[in-house]
Protein backbone atom coordinates (compact mmCIF):
# COMPACT_ATOMS: atom_id res chain seq x y z
CA UNK A 1 0.00 0.00 0.00
CA UNK A 2 2.67 2.43 0.98
CA UNK A 3 4.26 1.93 -2.42
CA UNK A 4 1.24 3.50 -4.15
CA UNK A 5 2.67 6.92 -3.55
CA UNK A 6 5.97 5.94 -5.22
CA UNK A 7 4.25 4.23 -8.14
CA UNK A 8 2.27 7.41 -8.66
CA UNK A 9 5.49 9.40 -8.55
CA UNK A 10 6.99 7.09 -11.17
CA UNK A 11 4.13 7.85 -13.54
CA UNK A 12 4.37 11.58 -12.83
CA UNK A 13 8.11 11.48 -13.40
CA UNK A 14 7.51 10.42 -16.98
CA UNK A 15 5.20 13.38 -17.47
CA UNK A 16 7.67 15.91 -15.98
CA UNK A 17 5.17 16.79 -13.29
CA UNK A 18 7.26 16.09 -10.21
CA UNK A 19 8.83 18.85 -8.24
CA UNK A 20 12.54 18.71 -7.64
CA UNK A 21 12.33 17.51 -4.02
CA UNK A 22 9.80 14.84 -5.03
CA UNK A 23 12.13 13.62 -7.77
CA UNK A 24 14.99 13.47 -5.32
CA UNK A 25 12.82 11.55 -2.84
CA UNK A 26 11.78 9.10 -5.56
CA UNK A 27 15.40 8.57 -6.63
CA UNK A 28 16.34 7.83 -3.05
CA UNK A 29 13.46 5.35 -2.73
CA UNK A 30 14.30 3.57 -5.99
CA UNK A 31 17.80 2.95 -4.68
CA UNK A 32 16.41 0.87 -1.84
CA UNK A 33 13.13 -0.59 -3.21
CA UNK A 34 13.53 -3.30 -5.84
CA UNK A 35 9.76 -3.62 -6.48
CA UNK A 36 9.30 0.02 -7.36
CA UNK A 37 12.53 -0.07 -9.31
CA UNK A 38 11.17 -2.92 -11.43
CA UNK A 39 7.98 -0.96 -12.14
CA UNK A 40 10.03 2.08 -13.07
CA UNK A 41 12.27 0.10 -15.42
CA UNK A 42 9.31 -1.64 -17.05
CA UNK A 43 7.49 1.64 -17.64
CA UNK A 44 10.64 3.20 -19.00
CA UNK A 45 11.14 0.35 -21.44
CA UNK A 46 7.52 0.36 -22.52
CA UNK A 47 7.53 4.11 -23.03
CA UNK A 48 10.76 3.90 -24.99
CA UNK A 49 9.25 1.16 -27.08
CA UNK A 50 6.13 3.17 -27.72
CA UNK A 51 8.04 6.25 -28.68
CA UNK A 52 10.37 4.17 -30.78
CA UNK A 53 7.44 2.68 -32.66
CA UNK A 54 5.70 5.99 -33.12
CA UNK A 55 8.84 7.74 -34.28
CA UNK A 56 9.25 5.33 -37.17
CA UNK A 57 9.01 7.28 -40.41
CA UNK A 58 6.21 6.52 -42.82
CA UNK A 59 7.09 5.82 -46.44
CA UNK A 60 6.05 8.29 -49.12
CA UNK A 61 4.32 6.13 -51.75
CA UNK A 62 5.94 7.90 -54.70
CA UNK A 63 8.16 10.90 -53.90
CA UNK A 64 8.74 11.89 -57.54
CA UNK A 65 5.04 11.77 -58.26
CA UNK A 66 4.34 13.90 -55.19
CA UNK A 67 6.87 16.53 -56.31
CA UNK A 68 5.49 16.48 -59.84
CA UNK A 69 1.92 16.85 -58.63
CA UNK A 70 2.88 19.83 -56.48
CA UNK A 71 4.59 21.57 -59.39
CA UNK A 72 1.71 20.75 -61.74
CA UNK A 73 -0.76 22.28 -59.32
CA UNK A 74 1.37 25.40 -59.14
CA UNK A 75 1.46 25.69 -62.92
CA UNK A 76 -2.29 25.15 -63.14
CA UNK A 77 -2.82 27.73 -60.44
CA UNK A 78 -0.70 30.32 -62.26
CA UNK A 79 -2.52 29.57 -65.52
CA UNK A 80 -5.90 29.81 -63.84
CA UNK A 81 -5.10 33.08 -62.17
CA UNK A 82 -3.94 34.47 -65.54
CA UNK A 83 -7.20 33.26 -67.14
CA UNK A 84 -9.24 34.78 -64.32
CA UNK A 85 -7.47 38.05 -64.89
CA UNK A 86 -8.26 37.92 -68.61
CA UNK A 87 -11.86 37.00 -67.84
CA UNK A 88 -12.16 39.96 -65.49
CA UNK A 89 -10.80 42.26 -68.20
CA UNK A 90 -13.19 40.77 -70.78
CA UNK A 91 -16.13 41.19 -68.39
CA UNK A 92 -15.07 44.74 -67.83
CA UNK A 93 -15.16 45.39 -71.56
CA UNK A 94 -18.57 43.73 -71.85
CA UNK A 95 -19.90 45.99 -69.14
CA UNK A 96 -18.58 49.07 -70.88
CA UNK A 97 -20.19 48.19 -74.22
CA UNK A 98 -23.64 47.42 -72.78
CA UNK A 99 -26.18 49.80 -74.50
CA UNK A 100 -27.50 51.38 -71.30
CA UNK A 101 -24.02 51.83 -69.94
CA UNK A 102 -22.89 53.39 -73.20
CA UNK A 103 -25.75 55.88 -73.17
CA UNK A 104 -25.00 56.81 -69.61
CA UNK A 105 -21.31 57.27 -70.42
CA UNK A 106 -22.14 59.45 -73.41
CA UNK A 107 -24.39 61.71 -71.36
CA UNK A 108 -21.82 61.93 -68.61
CA UNK A 109 -19.16 62.86 -71.17
CA UNK A 110 -21.30 65.65 -72.62
CA UNK A 111 -22.05 67.05 -69.19
CA UNK A 112 -18.40 67.00 -68.23
CA UNK A 113 -17.47 68.67 -71.52
CA UNK A 114 -20.01 71.44 -70.93
CA UNK A 115 -18.70 72.00 -67.42
CA UNK A 116 -15.17 72.09 -68.75
CA UNK A 117 -16.03 74.68 -71.44
CA UNK A 118 -17.79 76.93 -68.96
CA UNK A 119 -14.81 76.71 -66.61
CA UNK A 120 -12.45 77.53 -69.48
CA UNK A 121 -14.51 80.60 -70.41
CA UNK A 122 -14.51 81.84 -66.83
CA UNK A 123 -10.80 81.30 -66.50
CA UNK A 124 -10.05 83.08 -69.79
CA UNK A 125 -12.20 86.03 -68.77
CA UNK A 126 -10.52 86.43 -65.43
CA UNK A 127 -7.10 86.07 -67.00
CA UNK A 128 -7.90 88.87 -69.46
CA UNK A 129 -9.14 91.05 -66.65
CA UNK A 130 -6.00 90.36 -64.75
CA UNK A 131 -3.85 91.17 -67.73
CA UNK A 132 -5.53 94.53 -68.18
CA UNK A 133 -5.11 95.29 -64.53
CA UNK A 134 -1.51 94.29 -64.57
CA UNK A 135 -0.87 96.36 -67.66
CA UNK A 136 -2.28 99.36 -65.91
CA UNK A 137 -0.44 98.64 -62.74
CA UNK A 138 2.76 97.95 -64.53
CA UNK A 139 2.65 101.46 -65.95
CA UNK A 140 1.99 102.80 -62.54
CA UNK A 141 4.37 100.49 -60.83
CA UNK A 142 7.09 101.58 -63.23
CA UNK A 143 7.16 105.02 -61.78
CA UNK A 144 7.72 103.74 -58.30
CA UNK A 145 11.19 102.75 -59.38
CA UNK A 146 12.65 106.24 -59.52
CA UNK A 147 16.29 106.89 -59.66
CA UNK A 148 17.38 108.01 -56.23
CA UNK A 149 18.86 111.34 -57.28
CA UNK A 150 15.60 112.31 -58.99
CA UNK A 151 13.63 111.28 -56.00
CA UNK A 152 15.92 113.27 -53.76
CA UNK A 153 15.68 116.38 -55.87
CA UNK A 154 11.98 116.03 -56.03
CA UNK A 155 11.62 115.60 -52.35
CA UNK A 156 13.89 118.50 -51.51
CA UNK A 157 12.11 120.76 -53.92
CA UNK A 158 8.69 119.76 -52.77
CA UNK A 159 9.55 120.05 -49.13
CA UNK A 160 10.83 123.52 -49.61
CA UNK A 161 7.64 124.51 -51.36
CA UNK A 162 5.38 122.93 -48.78
CA UNK A 163 7.43 124.15 -45.82
CA UNK A 164 6.74 127.63 -46.88
CA UNK A 165 3.08 126.88 -46.42
CA UNK A 166 3.68 125.46 -42.93
CA UNK A 167 2.50 121.96 -43.69
CA UNK A 168 3.34 119.35 -41.13
CA UNK A 169 6.08 116.89 -42.09
CA UNK A 170 3.59 114.04 -41.92
CA UNK A 171 1.39 115.78 -44.43
CA UNK A 172 4.34 116.39 -46.67
CA UNK A 173 5.28 112.72 -46.47
CA UNK A 174 1.79 111.67 -47.38
CA UNK A 175 1.76 113.94 -50.39
CA UNK A 176 5.05 112.55 -51.57
CA UNK A 177 3.91 108.95 -51.08
CA UNK A 178 0.81 109.60 -53.15
CA UNK A 179 2.89 111.23 -55.81
CA UNK A 180 5.22 108.26 -56.00
CA UNK A 181 2.38 105.88 -56.71
CA UNK A 182 0.65 107.90 -59.40
CA UNK A 183 3.43 109.85 -60.98
CA UNK A 184 4.85 109.46 -64.41
CA UNK A 185 8.64 109.74 -64.71
CA UNK A 186 8.57 112.27 -67.52
CA UNK A 187 6.63 114.74 -65.40
CA UNK A 188 9.18 115.06 -62.66
CA UNK A 189 11.31 117.44 -64.57
CA UNK A 190 8.24 119.35 -65.42
CA UNK A 191 7.22 119.50 -61.79
CA UNK A 192 10.57 120.72 -60.78
CA UNK A 193 10.33 123.62 -63.06
CA UNK A 194 6.62 124.09 -62.39
CA UNK A 195 6.67 124.99 -58.69
CA UNK A 196 6.84 128.67 -57.94
CA UNK A 197 7.57 130.47 -54.77
CA UNK A 198 4.47 131.73 -53.16
CA UNK A 199 2.17 129.16 -54.60
CA UNK A 200 -0.43 127.88 -52.15
CA UNK A 201 -0.39 124.36 -50.91
CA UNK A 202 -3.55 123.54 -52.72
CA UNK A 203 -2.41 124.99 -56.03
CA UNK A 204 0.91 123.15 -55.78
CA UNK A 205 -0.88 119.97 -54.99
CA UNK A 206 -3.45 120.43 -57.73
CA UNK A 207 -0.77 121.24 -60.25
CA UNK A 208 1.19 118.16 -59.27
CA UNK A 209 -1.86 115.99 -59.53
CA UNK A 210 -2.71 117.36 -62.96
CA UNK A 211 0.80 117.02 -64.18
CA UNK A 212 1.18 113.55 -62.95
CA UNK A 213 -2.03 112.26 -64.37
CA UNK A 214 -0.90 113.15 -67.84
CA UNK A 215 0.44 110.15 -69.67
Amino acid at each position, binding site marked *: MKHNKWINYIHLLGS*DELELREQQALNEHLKVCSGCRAVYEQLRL*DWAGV*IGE*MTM*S*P*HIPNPEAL*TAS*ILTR*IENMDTQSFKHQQLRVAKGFQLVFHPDIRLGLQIATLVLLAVFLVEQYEVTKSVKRLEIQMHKQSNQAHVVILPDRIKKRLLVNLKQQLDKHSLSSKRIERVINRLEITAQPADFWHLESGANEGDSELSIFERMKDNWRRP
Partner: protein
Amino acid sequence: MTPSESQRTDVQLIRDCQSHDQAAFRYLVERYQATAFRFAFRLSCETMLAEDICQKAFLRVWNYRLKLNPEARFATLLYTIVSQLWIDETRSRNRRPSSKDSIDLNQDLISNEPSIETISHNQDLARRIKRLSHKLPPKQRLVFTLRDLEDLSIAEVVQITGISAGSVKTNLSLARRKLRQQLQAITGIES
Protein backbone atom coordinates in the same frame (compact mmCIF):
# COMPACT_ATOMS: atom_id res chain seq x y z
CA MET B 1 19.44 17.05 -57.09
CA THR B 2 22.98 17.47 -58.33
CA PRO B 3 25.78 17.95 -55.74
CA SER B 4 26.05 21.68 -56.47
CA GLU B 5 22.29 22.11 -56.17
CA SER B 6 22.16 20.25 -52.86
CA GLN B 7 24.71 22.69 -51.44
CA ARG B 8 22.46 25.67 -52.01
CA THR B 9 21.12 26.77 -48.67
CA ASP B 10 17.47 27.28 -47.84
CA VAL B 11 18.09 31.03 -47.78
CA GLN B 12 19.38 30.97 -51.36
CA LEU B 13 16.56 28.74 -52.53
CA ILE B 14 13.88 30.92 -50.95
CA ARG B 15 15.40 34.04 -52.47
CA ASP B 16 15.36 32.36 -55.87
CA CYS B 17 11.75 31.28 -55.33
CA GLN B 18 10.90 34.90 -54.62
CA SER B 19 12.31 35.66 -58.05
CA HIS B 20 9.75 33.19 -59.48
CA ASP B 21 12.38 30.49 -60.02
CA GLN B 22 10.33 27.28 -60.09
CA ALA B 23 13.46 25.15 -60.35
CA ALA B 24 14.61 26.46 -56.96
CA PHE B 25 11.18 25.70 -55.55
CA ARG B 26 11.46 22.18 -56.86
CA TYR B 27 14.70 21.68 -54.91
CA LEU B 28 12.98 23.00 -51.81
CA VAL B 29 10.12 20.54 -52.25
CA GLU B 30 12.47 17.61 -52.77
CA ARG B 31 14.43 18.61 -49.70
CA TYR B 32 11.46 18.95 -47.36
CA GLN B 33 8.63 16.83 -48.69
CA ALA B 34 9.65 13.84 -46.56
CA THR B 35 9.55 16.01 -43.42
CA ALA B 36 6.17 17.46 -44.32
CA PHE B 37 4.71 14.08 -45.23
CA ARG B 38 6.02 12.39 -42.10
CA PHE B 39 4.60 15.09 -39.84
CA ALA B 40 1.26 15.13 -41.65
CA PHE B 41 1.08 11.33 -41.46
CA ARG B 42 1.82 11.26 -37.74
CA LEU B 43 -1.03 13.67 -37.19
CA SER B 44 -3.58 12.19 -39.57
CA CYS B 45 -2.54 8.52 -39.79
CA GLU B 46 -3.73 8.46 -43.41
CA THR B 47 -1.43 8.33 -46.43
CA MET B 48 -3.75 10.10 -48.87
CA LEU B 49 -4.63 12.84 -46.43
CA ALA B 50 -0.97 13.29 -45.54
CA GLU B 51 -0.11 13.65 -49.24
CA ASP B 52 -2.92 16.14 -49.73
CA ILE B 53 -1.82 18.20 -46.74
CA CYS B 54 1.77 18.04 -47.99
CA GLN B 55 0.73 19.35 -51.43
CA LYS B 56 -1.40 22.15 -49.97
CA ALA B 57 1.42 23.15 -47.63
CA PHE B 58 3.88 23.62 -50.49
CA LEU B 59 1.26 25.43 -52.56
CA ARG B 60 0.76 27.82 -49.70
CA VAL B 61 4.51 28.35 -49.47
CA TRP B 62 4.61 29.19 -53.19
CA ASN B 63 1.63 31.55 -52.96
CA TYR B 64 3.15 33.48 -50.06
CA ARG B 65 6.78 33.23 -51.15
CA LEU B 66 7.11 37.00 -51.56
CA LYS B 67 6.21 37.51 -47.90
CA LEU B 68 8.66 34.90 -46.60
CA ASN B 69 11.70 35.91 -44.61
CA PRO B 70 14.58 34.00 -46.27
CA GLU B 71 16.60 34.10 -43.04
CA ALA B 72 13.91 32.32 -41.02
CA ARG B 73 14.08 28.55 -40.59
CA PHE B 74 12.09 27.01 -43.43
CA ALA B 75 11.30 23.80 -41.55
CA THR B 76 9.54 25.78 -38.82
CA LEU B 77 7.39 27.49 -41.42
CA LEU B 78 6.51 24.16 -42.99
CA TYR B 79 5.55 22.65 -39.62
CA THR B 80 3.34 25.66 -38.94
CA ILE B 81 1.53 25.36 -42.27
CA VAL B 82 1.05 21.59 -41.96
CA SER B 83 -0.29 22.03 -38.42
CA GLN B 84 -2.81 24.63 -39.60
CA LEU B 85 -3.93 22.50 -42.52
CA TRP B 86 -4.37 19.44 -40.29
CA ILE B 87 -6.40 21.44 -37.74
CA ASP B 88 -8.61 22.81 -40.54
CA GLU B 89 -9.11 19.30 -41.88
CA THR B 90 -9.97 17.98 -38.40
CA ARG B 91 -12.52 20.74 -37.86
CA SER B 92 -14.16 20.20 -41.23
CA ARG B 93 -14.37 16.48 -40.57
CA ASN B 94 -15.99 17.12 -37.21
CA ARG B 95 -18.59 19.24 -38.97
CA ARG B 96 -19.42 16.62 -41.61
CA PRO B 97 -19.75 13.10 -40.22
CA SER B 98 -17.90 10.59 -42.33
CA SER B 99 -16.13 7.33 -41.90
CA LYS B 100 -12.79 8.52 -43.18
CA ASP B 101 -11.02 7.70 -39.95
CA SER B 102 -10.62 4.05 -40.84
CA ILE B 103 -7.66 3.04 -42.89
CA ASP B 104 -8.73 2.33 -46.45
CA LEU B 105 -6.47 -0.02 -48.33
CA ASN B 106 -8.15 0.71 -51.65
CA GLN B 107 -7.63 4.44 -51.34
CA ASP B 108 -3.95 3.91 -50.78
CA LEU B 109 -3.71 1.77 -53.88
CA ILE B 110 -5.57 4.30 -56.03
CA SER B 111 -3.62 7.38 -54.90
CA ASN B 112 -0.18 6.72 -56.35
CA GLU B 113 -0.06 2.97 -56.82
CA PRO B 114 2.34 2.39 -53.94
CA SER B 115 4.00 -0.91 -53.24
CA ILE B 116 2.48 -3.45 -50.88
CA GLU B 117 5.38 -2.97 -48.49
CA THR B 118 4.73 0.75 -48.30
CA ILE B 119 1.05 0.21 -47.69
CA SER B 120 1.54 -2.34 -44.95
CA HIS B 121 4.33 -0.34 -43.30
CA ASN B 122 2.23 2.82 -43.21
CA GLN B 123 -0.86 0.97 -42.06
CA ASP B 124 1.04 -0.72 -39.27
CA LEU B 125 2.54 2.56 -38.12
CA ALA B 126 -0.85 4.29 -38.27
CA ARG B 127 -2.35 1.51 -36.19
CA ARG B 128 0.30 1.89 -33.50
CA ILE B 129 -0.03 5.66 -33.36
CA LYS B 130 -3.80 5.54 -33.26
CA ARG B 131 -3.85 2.77 -30.66
CA LEU B 132 -2.24 5.09 -28.16
CA SER B 133 -3.19 8.58 -29.27
CA HIS B 134 -6.73 8.38 -30.63
CA LYS B 135 -8.15 9.77 -27.37
CA LEU B 136 -5.94 12.84 -27.41
CA PRO B 137 -7.63 16.13 -28.27
CA PRO B 138 -6.10 17.91 -31.29
CA LYS B 139 -4.01 20.41 -29.33
CA GLN B 140 -2.41 17.76 -27.10
CA ARG B 141 -1.81 15.52 -30.07
CA LEU B 142 -0.16 18.33 -31.98
CA VAL B 143 2.09 19.34 -29.10
CA PHE B 144 3.05 15.72 -28.33
CA THR B 145 3.85 14.99 -31.99
CA LEU B 146 5.99 18.10 -32.34
CA ARG B 147 7.88 17.63 -29.08
CA ASP B 148 8.24 13.89 -28.63
CA LEU B 149 7.98 12.51 -32.16
CA GLU B 150 9.48 15.32 -34.25
CA ASP B 151 11.94 16.11 -31.43
CA LEU B 152 11.54 19.88 -31.58
CA SER B 153 12.32 22.18 -28.69
CA ILE B 154 9.65 23.83 -26.54
CA ALA B 155 10.55 27.19 -28.10
CA GLU B 156 9.97 25.81 -31.59
CA VAL B 157 6.67 24.25 -30.54
CA VAL B 158 5.61 27.62 -29.14
CA GLN B 159 6.51 29.30 -32.43
CA ILE B 160 4.70 26.70 -34.52
CA THR B 161 1.52 26.41 -32.48
CA GLY B 162 1.29 30.03 -31.40
CA ILE B 163 0.44 29.08 -27.81
CA SER B 164 2.41 30.04 -24.72
CA ALA B 165 5.23 27.96 -23.29
CA GLY B 166 3.21 27.26 -20.18
CA SER B 167 0.30 26.00 -22.23
CA VAL B 168 2.64 23.83 -24.32
CA LYS B 169 4.05 22.19 -21.20
CA THR B 170 0.59 21.64 -19.75
CA ASN B 171 -0.71 20.06 -22.94
CA LEU B 172 2.43 17.95 -23.24
CA SER B 173 2.12 16.71 -19.69
CA LEU B 174 -1.54 15.81 -20.19
CA ALA B 175 -0.78 14.07 -23.48
CA ARG B 176 2.00 11.99 -21.97
CA ARG B 177 -0.16 11.04 -19.00
CA LYS B 178 -2.98 9.87 -21.28
CA LEU B 179 -0.56 7.92 -23.44
CA ARG B 180 0.90 6.22 -20.41
CA GLN B 181 -2.57 5.36 -19.17
CA GLN B 182 -3.40 3.96 -22.57
CA LEU B 183 -0.15 2.04 -22.57
CA GLN B 184 -1.00 0.57 -19.18
CA ALA B 185 -4.39 -0.43 -20.45
CA ILE B 186 -2.85 -2.13 -23.47
CA THR B 187 0.05 -3.86 -21.76
CA GLY B 188 -1.85 -4.62 -18.52
CA ILE B 189 0.75 -3.20 -16.16
CA GLU B 190 -0.75 -2.72 -12.71
CA SER B 191 0.39 -0.34 -10.13
